[in-house]
């Protein structure tokens, strides 16, 4: 009986926290800064720290993942004498799955954790409450630009990831393993469709960006304002964010590509 009560209580707590997160998100989006000039400046600063600073890790890992895919794909496809299809394999894998998913996972680790830690530290040092004292809404001034910057950056990073991956794979398979480059491109262009592959991958990245950034800013805003609490909240951001990405990816893949 006690177990049931505990379980029910945990469920209620969880539903409550989801509701709080939803209200929090709605409030921070619908109360954007009033003055346009100021809001753009805040947004640009966040775009820099969330997007530009994540660029290096995304480009480097994209290139390496493309290169590894090309190597592995080549070694298997060469057994069937169809090593030209490595371009097709590379492009489909990167555009449909690896691009959005790996970028989002890297983004959760690189940008999401820093967002949580930054907001958590602001809370611990009572900067958020002093904003309120000054009559500035912290949701509007601190949370909204960070959330929007995250939602803008992740899809762009995912596109950059796929592109560097394909270029990395091209270098390995064409320049190193000697795949014919005309066949590489033509097979790729034959099998990749703009609307089903590129656009669907982009939609995936947008969904992941909303989920990850939402989790990151919410965890930072709701954390226990101690050094231990900030540490826990940062861990939770990465763990919950990664799980949310993988679960969402399954649902989205089933909806987009499930019919063939």
């Amino acid at each position: 009986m006690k177990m049931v009560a505990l379980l029910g209580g945990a469920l209620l707590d969880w539903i409550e926290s989801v509701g709080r997160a939803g209200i929090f998100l709605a409030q921070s989006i619908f109360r954007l800064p009033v003055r346009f000039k100021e809001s753009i400046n805040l947004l640009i600063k966040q775009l820099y720290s969330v997007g530009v600073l994540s660029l290096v890790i995304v480009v480097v890992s994209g290139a390496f993942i493309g290169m590894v895919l090309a190597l592995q794909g080549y070694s298997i496809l060469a057994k069937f004498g169809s090593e030209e299809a490595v371009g097709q394999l590379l492009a489909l894998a990167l555009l449909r799955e690896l691009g959005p998913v790996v970028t989002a996972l890297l983004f959760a680790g690189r940008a999401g954790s820093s967002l949580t830690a930054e907001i958590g530290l602001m809370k611990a040092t009572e900067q958020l409450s002093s904003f309120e004292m000054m009559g500035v809404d912290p949701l509007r001034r601190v949370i909204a630009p960070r959330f929007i910057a995250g939602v803008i950056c992740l899809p762009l990073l995912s596109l950059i990831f796929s592109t560097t991956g394909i270029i990395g794979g091209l270098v390995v398979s064409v320049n190193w393993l000697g795949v014919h480059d005309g066949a590489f491109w033509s097979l790729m262009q034959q099998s990749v469709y703009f609307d089903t592959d590129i656009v669907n991958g982009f939609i995936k990245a947008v969904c992941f960006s909303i989920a990850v950034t939402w989790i990151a800013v919410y965890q930072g805003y709701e954390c226990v304002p101690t050094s231990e609490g900030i540490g826990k909240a940062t861990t939770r951001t990465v763990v919950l964010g990664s799980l949310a990405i993988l679960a969402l990816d399954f649902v989205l893949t089933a909806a987009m590509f499930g019919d063939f």
Partner: protein
Amino acid sequence: MRSKRTELFVGSFILLGILAFVYLAVQVSGLAFTDKKDTYQIVARFDDIGGLSNRAKVTIAGVTIGSVESITLDKELYMGLVTMNIDSDVNNIPTDSSIAILTSGLLGEKYLGLSIGADDEMLTDGGEIFDTQSALVLETLISQFLFKAGDSEK
């Protein structure tokens, strides 16, 4: 001064993202920005479409001249009804041409191959090709071969 540099970095980041998008669209998916070509539709009925899918190409002498628009079941004849879009510059397909479902390579995709007939009348929009040759289904082929082998032993 510092905020100018930040703006520069953010601007180039966003440009890089857009460039990546254009690169993927043009180079990887081979998206052409020209208008959709004018096409006309013809249909053909097959006994067995055997794995032909939408968007499969339609060829003459190996050159792509169109694509499969839809595949449905003709409920009265119990045959597969394939509708194709053919480029309108290819407007000289004789009405007695024949069409076959072919496979590119051993494991490749299915496509349609047109063999040109000799009639003076040409196919127009909504026309039908009557001389069709179904896909080769491996099981049927093997069972025919086995029956033949059994016959010759007697």
